[in-house]
């Protein structure tokens, strides 16, 4: 992989800590803190980071290429495997994109179910992020708490569609499953269960001196830089930009819901943490509103058995837990898409890593990788 290190000007001749003032360290792909198989080449001066380069692609499965050889329906399960901790959002994005292409609209009941499940999934994704992020910074306990509570969400998923992680919950045109007996009651029970739990996480971390010191002013990124890099999601919002696709261009049934967009000020790791914690609470609010007023009616729109969308192209994006998840689909009128391009939030957000850690310490790299909330399955696709 020597060619990949080119821009760091890696010198092959023997270097020690002092004579070169710099040291090249390989973090990953086998490293406890890289959340999968990310390889980060760090150029260090002692403990100070002079530059980084991410080497990705260890988890590349060619999802976009596979799409060209599957029908629209057959490709649906594949999107679950990108951001596997937020599979429901992926499915939502893809289904809505194809619906747009087909010019059909999911019935209201399906849209409400979609919103509730997606928001549940957002909470699950943020919980997983919180646990692993805290673990990276050295607090091991939150991981187990969040996994305990995430389990409840996965149980609801399992009851709804039979799968816990790669749910494949939605179909093009609506939902394939009707809510099960007692769905609303269980979701309500979950809401009552999880609200004090989020307080518990905050109690452990928000005012913890070490946590604050480790995250405040770490990995700062300004709103301007975020926009320049195309960074979206909580990272963008923590920098002070009130941009949430759920509000900006409402999809599914989000227009009917009343919720806030939490915004940070400093754009540091601590603000991103606060924003995500707030987002979890807002998601609870959305679910609470939705659970009371799921309309009756069909859950599946009328769509042709053999899906042949008209020739054309479409870009549809949703607010996934990690940022803007977009699907660009080109149709040539056949049963298979001509081209599918995914705009994964993790991949775009990962770009910011280098900017955020320059001049920081090694330990901050870990914190920043954690706070970007990347999923390598989505980065590499």
């Amino acid at each position, binding site marked *: 992989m020597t060619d990949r290190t080119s821009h760091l000007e890696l010198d092959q001749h023997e270097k*020690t*800590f*002092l004579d070169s003032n710099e040291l090249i360290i390989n973090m990953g792909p086998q490293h406890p803190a890289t959340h999968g198989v990310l390889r980060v080449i760090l150029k260090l001066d002692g403990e100070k980071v002079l530059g980084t380069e991410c080497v990705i692609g260890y988890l590349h499965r060619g999802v976009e290429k596979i799409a060209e050889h599957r029908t629209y329906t057959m490709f649906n399960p594949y999107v679950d495997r990108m951001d596997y901790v937020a599979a429901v959002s992926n499915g939502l994005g893809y289904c809505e994109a194809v619906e747009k292409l087909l010019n059909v609209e999911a019935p209201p009941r399906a849209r409400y179910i979609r919103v509730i499940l997606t928001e549940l999934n957002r909470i699950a994704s943020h919980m997983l992020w919180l646990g692993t992020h805290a673990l990276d910074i050295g607090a091991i306990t939150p991981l187990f708490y969040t996994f305990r509570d995430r389990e409840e969400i996965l149980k609801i998923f399992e009851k709804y569609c039979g799968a816990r992680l790669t749910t494949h919950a939605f179909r093009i045109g609506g939902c394939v499953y009707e809510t099960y007996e007692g769905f609303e009651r269980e979701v309500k029970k979950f809401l009552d269960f999880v609200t004090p739990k989020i307080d518990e996480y905050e109690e452990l971390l928000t005012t913890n001196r070490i946590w604050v010191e480790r995250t405040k002013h770490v990995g700062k990124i300004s709103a301007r830089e975020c926009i320049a890099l195309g960074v979206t999601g909580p990272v963008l919002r923590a920098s002070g930009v009130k941009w949430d696709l759920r509000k900006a261009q409402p999809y599914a049934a989000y227009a009917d819901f009343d919720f806030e967009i939490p915004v940070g000020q400093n754009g540091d790791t601590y603000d991103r943490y606060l924003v995500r914690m707030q987002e979890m609470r807002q998601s609870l609010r959305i679910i609470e509103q939705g659970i009371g007023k799921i309309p009756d009616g069909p859950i599946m729109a009328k769509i042709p058995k053999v899906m042949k969308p008209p020739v054309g192209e479409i870009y549809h994006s949703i607010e996934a837990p990690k940022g803007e998840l977009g699907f660009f689909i080109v149709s040539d009128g056949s049963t298979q898409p001509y081209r599918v391009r995914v705009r994964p939030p993790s991949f775009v957000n990962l770009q910011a890593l280098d900017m955020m850690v320059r001049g920081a310490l090694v330990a901050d790299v870990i914190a920043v990788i954690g706070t970007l909330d990347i999923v390598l399955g989505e980065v590499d696709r």
Partner: protein
Amino acid sequence: MAPVATTFFFYFLSALTVLSGVLVITRKNPVHSALALIMSLLGQAALYLMLYAPFVAGVQIILYAGGIMVLFLFVIMLVNIEKSLKEDQFNKQWLVGMAAAVALGALFVFVYIKGKGLFPDRTIQMPEQSNTQQVAVLLYGNYMFAFEIASLLLLVAVIGAVVMAKKRI
């Protein structure tokens, strides 16, 4: 308590000390040298204990072995380059140096043989249990001024080391 098996321990410890000293100056790798020096220092600390100087022994362990030698190892790690291992380990005037050192050794032997009377074979009774207190009395009594100068010296050394080693001031 009095040291037991004094003779055996004396020869054992002094052999340890001197042999480690030999290793210090002969090893190629500075880390090995430093480890040998640590052994030598610990052996000396034990010799101090046999000489009823427990406080000096404690200081020797805590300062020399635990402090100074860590500093040495730290620096060796920073500047350790493989290149220097392949080079000549002894400089050109090693023969002269050896000769001078041997002459010095001969001088010592001469002095010890000639001046045997200078080192009376009496030992004053040392109160071992209050050694620390007595050292403290001397240190903060008779040698107060020297103590202050030593602290000043340490301050200067701290500043000097920082100035020397810092990249940009």
